[in-house]
């Protein structure tokens, strides 16, 4: 971990913000203030923050229903995000998208997606757009280990490599696709081997080490901007909560989860900051207090926001 202290501190704070956002949503979900689907990314904050901090504000991003972390890392307005969770008209998608469909072109966010792997070709299209405009932008797409078995994923990888698109493919390998363990869904020795068939550069990183993710994505972005085409990054991580709220988690052991809790990316960065950079408990307390306040404000904003009017069912559809 050799990144500047300021950067590490701001990454720490953003990871803490994501964690607090998701934990608040778990609570709100159980209290039935959030309806529909919600897939918490607790435990995967380092992939989101490491990746999105390594690219520019005007670079493009697509992610998945488990993409709150990436969207917050890319800079989505947390009040609007929380309002979206509560189905309010002040939400990022005016209450029409919910947890799985945040989008915000002002930060390059071309959408979460509720269809596994669908964001991959969309990001490839954005990368092609950047290549045609020669504007130096890259597109980052974040997806799970389950996505590598989808047709759209393969078609997009093939074309991305064929046309040397400025695309970064970040696979959050959290060992499970819903309830199915990795070994039961594909015959690969490692997920990154998928890229071999496309003659694509691939790297494997510790997805719970925010600096490792940051470095890998930064290098991939540098190569992409230099016309060197796409990079596939397998980031090994773990979701500490179930696939969705109410998941019985019968497919994994308590010991396994406990072992991964030890490797919690936020804890790890905190330990590093304390040891190597001398950050004090008081400084961490201040960060967490700021984050808690921000989330409390967001929940208040969301709760006080109006629901969409019934007439809005027909708006925001045709241009």
């Amino acid at each position, binding site marked *: 971990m050799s990144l500047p202290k300021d950067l590490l501190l701001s990454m720490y704070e953003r990871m803490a913000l994501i964690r607090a956002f998701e934990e608040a949503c778990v609570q709100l979900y159980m209290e039935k203030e959030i309806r529909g689907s919600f897939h918490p990314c607790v435990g995967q904050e380092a992939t989101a923050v490491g990746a999105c901090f390594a690219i520019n504000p005007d670079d493009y991003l697509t992610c998945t229903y488990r993409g709150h972390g990436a969207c917050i890392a890319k800079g989505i307005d947390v009040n609007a995000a929380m309002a979206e969770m509560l189905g309010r008209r002040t939400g990022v998608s*005016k209450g029409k998208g919910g947890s799985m469909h945040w989008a915000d072109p002002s930060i390059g966010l071309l959408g979460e997606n509720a269809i596994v792997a669908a964001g991959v070709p969309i990001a490839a299209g954005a990368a092609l757009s950047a290549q045609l405009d020669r504007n130096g932008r890259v597109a980052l797409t974040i997806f799970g280990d389950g996505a590598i078995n989808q*047709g759209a994923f393969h078609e997009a990888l093939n074309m991305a490599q064929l046309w040397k698109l400025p695309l970064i493919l970040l696979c959050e390998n959290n060992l499970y696709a819903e309830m199915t363990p990795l070994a039961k869904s594909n015959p690969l020795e490692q997920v990154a081997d998928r890229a071999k068939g496309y003659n694509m550069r691939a790297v494997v990183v510790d997805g719970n080490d925010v600096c490792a993710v940051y470095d890998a994505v930064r290098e991939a972005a540098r190569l992409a901007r230099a016309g060197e085409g796409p990079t596939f990054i397998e980031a090994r991580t773990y979701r500490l909560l179930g696939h969705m709220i109410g998941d019985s988690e019968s497919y994994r052991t308590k010991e396994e989860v406990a072992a991964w809790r030890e490797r919690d990316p936020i804890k790890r960065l905190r330990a590093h900051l304390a040891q190597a950079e001398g950050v004090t408990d008081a400084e961490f307390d201040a960060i967490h207090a700021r984050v808690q306040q921000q989330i409390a404000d967001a929940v208040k904003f969301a709760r006080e926001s109006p629901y969409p009017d019934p007439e809005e069912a027909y708006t925001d559809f045709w241009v």
Partner: protein
Amino acid sequence: MRELTYTQALREALTEEMERDPNIILMGEDIGAYGGVFRVTEGLLARFGPERVRDTPISEAGFIGMGVGLAMTGKRPVPELMFMDFALVAADSIWNQAAKMRAMSGGRVKVPMVIRAQQGGGRGNGAQHSQSFEALFTHIPGFKVVLPATPADAKGLLKSALRDENPVMFIEHKLLYNTKGPVPDGEYTIPLGVADVKREGQDLTIVSYSRQLLFALEAAEALQREHGISAEVIDLRCTAPMDIETIVKSLRKTHRLLITHESHASCGVGAEIAMRVMETAFDELDAPIMRVAGLDVPIPVAKTLEDVVLPQPDAIVRGALKLMKE
């Protein structure tokens, strides 16, 4: 007026709009170097270069998904499905992505993409290369759906589609490409969602679109010649938005409605037109609405079979005669 084929008219529209708008990007299988299996994009690679006329691998889901990303980032992609049947291979990119992006984002993004495809039977191409999907595209909200029947309409409607900010499904017909017709000189567009009275008449209204429209006109001619029946023929031109107003206006005169399309009857566009007419103009009807549509079976190859499955002009004549007896 000069005469062009349907293919030439489409190519002219593409050329003019690509000259006008540098963001238009064509992509598809064998559309560049080869010029398209139906020759529509012939010469465009030489004129606009490989960045704007892009040959793709056989990856419909992938390149239409990429079209969504291109469209959301300021481009105007025009992916081509070589055969409409392949829309099912790209179904997610079409219906879960392109059709929904804007609504799901609360209007924050737009997807100005025109998918071009040719559809329809009549050539013995069999069940996987002859289908018509306008009803699918009309059923799932999110696409404007355009089906020109004449060269002039093909050009004017394609130019409008290429200026529309919404996803548009532009549906050509494989047996229309070589048809010829008058096409105006100079710049013109035809608005999407406006039907066109192609033949005026007094006794009944026939509504159709795409190649079936030519069959409807042929049937109208026979009805007049052999039975003294005067049929008004309306070309719907778009199934979304659907111009019911023009149909109702005609019914105020004829009070009898026959709808004909080559696609399967069940849950087809004809059923939708009939329902909307019932809702808005039931009192104008002097007889039950008649439908002459494709049979509900996969489309066979043998000509003797295909000609029964896809309704021919004589089937429309028979339907009209029955309707006039009601």
